[in-house]
């Protein structure tokens, strides 16, 4: 990336259909601002997030990946987010172990009513990633050229 061009981090947010996806909607209707470079991907439940999806997002140019799901105890399918919690904890730990900046990954529980929390979370995460700089350690060079 040329130096004179300001770094605009690409954020991929995987959002559960039953909570944070609606939370994102709500933050929109309430005209709360969060950066446009947050790309939201709707998933049916936070536990649908295959670790492969996280890695794919980084491969395809994400600088940060965040998973938003229902608060523990509130899963539409009763227990999905508990499994997601364990999986993401382990995945993030493994990524950290491989030397990939742990700040690039995050899980937040955001309900459908928490439009403000959604916007705040995204703003905060974007700032974190902005401070970290572009993803270099988990990039696919073939996708970066030209």
């Amino acid at each position, binding site marked *: 990336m040329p130096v004179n061009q300001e770094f605009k981090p690409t954020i991929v947010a995987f959002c559960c259909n039953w909570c944070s996806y609606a939370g994102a909607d709500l933050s929109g209707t309430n005209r709360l601002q969060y950066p446009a470079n947050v790309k939201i991907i709707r998933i049916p439940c936070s536990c649908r997030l295959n670790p492969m999806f996280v890695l794919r997002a980084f491969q*395809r*140019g994400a600088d940060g990946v965040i998973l938003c799901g229902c608060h523990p105890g509130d899963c539409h399918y009763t227990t999905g987010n508990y499994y997601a919690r364990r999986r993401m904890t382990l995945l993030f730990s493994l990524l950290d172990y491989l030397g990939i900046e742990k700040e690039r990954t995050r899980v937040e529980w955001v309900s459908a009513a928490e439009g403000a929390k959604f916007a705040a979370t995204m703003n905060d995460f974007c700032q974190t990633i902005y401070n970290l700089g572009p993803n270099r350690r988990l990039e696919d060079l*073939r*996708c970066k*050229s*030209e």
Partner: protein
Amino acid sequence: MKIWKLDRLQDLFAALAGERTLYIPADVAGQAKFTPWEPGMEMTKALNTNRSAKDLFFPQVEDLAAFKITGRQIQVEDNREDVEDFVIFGVRACDARSFSILDKVFLEEPADTYYKNRRDHATVMTLACSRPEATCFCTALGIDPQAPGGDVSCWVEGENLYLQANTQKGEALLEKLPAMEEGEKPQGDASVFDRLPLKDVDFSVFSEKALLHWFNSPVWEELSRSCLGCGSCTFVCPTCQCYDVKDFDTGTKVKRFRCWDSCMYSDFTMMAHGTNRPTQKERFRQRFMHKLVYYPNNHDGEIGCVGCGRCLRKCPISMNIVKVAKALKEGSV
């Protein structure tokens, strides 16, 4: 024959690396590997590199072309360029023979230009063996490890490195080096090669009987039974040359690349309607039939193996071409 003092080997490397990239077998991350030489880089103590020298001509992955797709239109980008001249130092006789085996596949018309490009720009400096491994059996395949061939042959004897050009390319290379003393190499002790445990493996039998005799041998079932279907043997083999062609969509264009493939893999011959080699037995058989029968049938009886012994050391379950050759011979009696 020219003489270079071994204690000044780094100077030789510096001179060779002066105008081109020089690859030497060096230890990288605990593995002997052909590596671009940098000042101070030492040769490995290992007899041979972990992977074979074919990597330098036929890398595991290489881009073939790119395609830009706009709507229904396709634009082909041919990004081939002449590679720069390079020298490989320290190729053993087995790997040097493997180049000629690969040549017969890749340079046969229509020649593979990616491979040819690298072959054309490479000068191969071989190094004679004096301390073979017990897994070496190049002599059983008619290779003389003490006359390793290539563009320049080298020998280590006492405190000297002896160099002899075998081709015009080799002569041109030596001419560019600082002036060297001329002399004759003293006769080394070659008796260790007579003690090699696998020196008598018989590869001549395979030309004596028909293809179907070997193909239908009852021993394949048993030999292949514990095969894991991984590709270690294929990927460390200096003569395995099968490849796959794949596309990768980068988001802006499609890159077509080729990568090593292994006939041991279940998807090797998989088509939409199925595969003609459905079990590991057929895949296993294909690999060894190719080396022992098919390749020789198509190339004047030359066996598609150079006896480097890498598969003997690397197979997770220690099944290898020596065991196969012996079992086939015994199974046919």
